């Protein structure tokens, strides 16, 4: 099928072109309690074609289209011809597409859908529930994906990988009152032991939330993150290394210059990884054909290299940039136990924790936190919100030596931000 697209693109008169086909075969199972609500299967292909057209003034136009696999060759020619015209309407500073570059394939092979589905079904059936903490509902998604990228400069890369997702709602009840907690796990194949551990931890959080008190108005207080919310904190760093942020001066990160004026906390080391065990994002090349590398992006809180798409990378004069798929943050100087010292609020459940990569603003409504008053007392709390700004915290972050994996990232088990504010629902 790809040959049909390539033939049309080669003949269209564009100065450069790119075609990406992503074929997905997937099985899905939806449960209410442990009863099957619905089963689904899919067999689909998404094809995106992109054409580039140079103008007389040297500028470069680009237009893209997603085309259905059912398009006839005649309609395809019309669509691509139209793309060439559309590309001529927009003017960008010129840049070149990636050419073929040496890389070592990862050799990831997805297991049959029946096998991966069976692993998830059995894992979920084996979750230890109690009378008061139990699975409300869950959704299992397993898929095999084949992605092929071809461009006019000679890139032709095909990668096959597994991609799975598990959506879980856990309920907890006490004295006629019931609450729920939610998780969306993204992974390669089913990791039964890790999932059981995570979901059983979630049930414990549910139990604690039922006995939680309204969060006091704590005002300024250090915040500790020990669940997947911490990914948002590190994604801020990753986004600010992106060439598109740097070029537009939305990032203040500069190579060789520390990310904060003074660093009193742990120094941060962030790496790009080609491969991370059971990640759904184990790719040898990015979506533009650039080989993904194991590389230090930030070392000891000093940016070492920028990342990003071909266009922005070339605008910045970077020749070997790529888009990050997997990444890791090294552990810090203290153990998780040492980080949990003094007065702080550890938040394990938010409604929707966010770190704005442009402004650095940090927000989240607290669904479950543990307030440590610094005198040995720990109180589960709920309600109110946490706020702060990354710029003020970059120099005073602490990270545990222990690390844990989430989807395509490995980060410290515990992260502590010193300069945070808690708006409570009752006076402290």
């Amino acid at each position, binding site marked *: 099928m790809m040959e049909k697209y390539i033939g049309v693109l080669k003949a269209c008169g564009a100065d450069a072109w790119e075609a990406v086909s992503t074929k997905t075969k997937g099985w899905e199972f939806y449960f209410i309690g442990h*009863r099957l609500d619905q089963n689904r*299967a899919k067999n689909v292909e998404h094809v995106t074609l992109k054409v580039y057209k140079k103008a007389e003034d040297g500028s470069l136009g680009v237009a893209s289209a997603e085309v259905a696999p*059912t398009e006839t060759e005649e309609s395809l020619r019309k669509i691509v011809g139209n793309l060439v015209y559309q590309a001529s309407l927009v003017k960008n500073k010129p840049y070149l597409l990636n050419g073929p570059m040496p890389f070592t394939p990862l050799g990831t092979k997805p297991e049959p859908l029946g096998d991966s589905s069976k692993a998830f079904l059995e894992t979920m059936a084996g979750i230890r529930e109690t009378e008061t903490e139990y699975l409300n509902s869950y959704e299992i998604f397993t898929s095999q994906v084949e992605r092929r990228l071809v461009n006019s400069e000679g890139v032709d890369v095909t990668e096959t990988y597994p991609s799975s997702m598990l959506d879980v709602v856990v*309920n907890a009840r006490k004295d006629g009152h019931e609450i*729920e907690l939610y998780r969306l796990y993204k992974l390669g194949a089913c990791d039964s032991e890790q999932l059981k551990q995570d979901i059983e931890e979630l049930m414990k959080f549910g139990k604690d939330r039922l006995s939680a008190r309204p969060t006091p108005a704590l005002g300024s207080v250090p915040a500790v993150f020990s669940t997947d919310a911490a990914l948002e904190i590190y994604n801020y760093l990753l986004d600010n290394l992106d060439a598109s942020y740097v070029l537009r*001066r939305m990032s203040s990160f500069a190579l060789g210059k520390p990310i904060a004026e003074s660093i009193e906390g742990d120094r941060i080391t962030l790496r790009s990884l080609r491969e991370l065990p059971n990640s759904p994002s184990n790719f040898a090349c990015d979506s533009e054909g650039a080989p993904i590398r194991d590389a230090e992006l930030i070392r000891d809180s000093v940016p070492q290299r920028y990342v990003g798409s071909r266009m922005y990378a070339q605008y910045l004069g970077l020749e070997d940039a790529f888009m990050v798929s997997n990444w890791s943050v090294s552990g810090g100087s203290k153990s998780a136990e040492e980080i949990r010292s003094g007065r702080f609020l550890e938040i394990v459940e938010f409604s929707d924790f966010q770190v*704005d990569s442009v402004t650095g603003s940090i927000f989240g409504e607290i669904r479950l936190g543990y307030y440590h008053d610094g005198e040995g007392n720990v109180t589960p709390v709920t309600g109110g919100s946490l706020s702060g700004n990354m710029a003020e915290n970059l120099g005073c972050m602490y990270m545990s030596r222990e690390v844990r994996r989430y989807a395509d990232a490995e980060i410290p088990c515990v992260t502590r931000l010193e300069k945070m504010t808690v708006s409570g629902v009752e006076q402290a």
Partner: protein
Amino acid sequence: MKAPFSEYLNGLLPGLRRLIELLEPDYDYVSVLSTDSKGLTVNISQHAKAVGNKTMTTERGTVVRVRRDGLYSEYALDRFDARHPELAAAEIGEALSQQLKLLKATGCQVYETAALSDEPLELLVEKETGQLPEEAELPALVERLSAISDKGMGLSEHMLDCMARAQSTHICKLFLTKNRCLRQSYVYSEGMVAAIVGRDGQNKMGYRSMSALGGPEVFAKLSDKVEEAVRDAEQMLDAERIVPGEYEIITSPEVTGLIAHEAFGHGVEMDMFVKGRALGADYIDKRVGSDLVTMHEGALCAEDVTSYAFDDEGTLAGDVVEIEHGILKAGICDAISALRLGTKPTGNGKRENFEHKVYTRMTNTIFDSGTDSLEDMIRSVKFGYLLEGMESGMEDPKHWGIQCILQMGREIRDGKLTGKIVSPVIMTGYVPDLLGNISMASTDRGVFGSGGCGKGHKEWVKVSDGGPYLKTVGRLG
């Protein structure tokens, strides 16, 4: 002009009818949804300009729903060959029987559900539009957006970038069963201007958006938005942090819409009732807001991005009064959840696209207007904030918590705007308290459809929401 229904889908019709005939001996319910929705996207910034045909809702494919032994199953494919429907029938039968074998081997129990009704109905709806995205005057649109971006850059010395985006989608959907053939075609459009400013290492972003049922002709209004976006961003540079606490607040129509969506939008999606995930199930006919609170939900209650004629299960669009003068009256429901709950579907069964499952989803969720003027509302505030600009929201239907992240609050003291801005603002609280404290509502209202809505953290669909300015009490941080 009328948005013409897809010739491609008309061409599939005989083959899809035959597919249903081929599947019927094995199943006691068979339906097909086929889609062919085309789009247009133009993105212009100072550094990158691009044109494309993909939007959040462009798609072409087919999903087949079947029922056997009380279990609903679905198969999504994008290569249906109308000349050989037997190939699709065999592919569907093979995949689903493999799944059933696995489910049997693992001892899965089924949530048995009755068969959906199949009342005869033929419908073809082609809604009015000025233009089609497929036929947009692209040079003029690119020029307009480029002019917006350039103008924005000239409005402030602190500008880092000014982005302008225009998207338009021509939705065509065909729903087919043995007895029903429903076809619809409509066009919606949405646009956005975002201004990013930076000063002394601090960045802020202001944005303004627009949406409408209609084609690319509506982007003429986008040019008016750039000054407001830049002004907002500039003002946020000088903003202070809010002192956390409970305040008298006035919500702008956009923020009102976010409250409608998060509070009693998600809270009364009745597939959540089936799962026991929503407190709303226990509050029908009980008070959840002040007398001033009346809220509608349905594809028929506004003309915006999700004002369809029928949903993705072939249920005709509705207009549900969810809250009437503060009393919770009804929820919204997809067809399978309605069967399970013994009620009627409301036309709210939606899919992200043909590849995804149907859930109960919102369409237009809107508070009714009141009788107050904004000026009187501001005059009535001793100390509080006028809240503007929606960033994001999150609900907790099981506990009625709400989180709204907002761009800014304009300080009001002694009945007057002081000119002081706080930003950003996170509003949290307990939904019945927030709605119960509504004491004034303005006569006007706005409807906003430029965003998307997820179920949990996935299943993104278009929705719109809105209402008037509301005065209430909120916890801000």
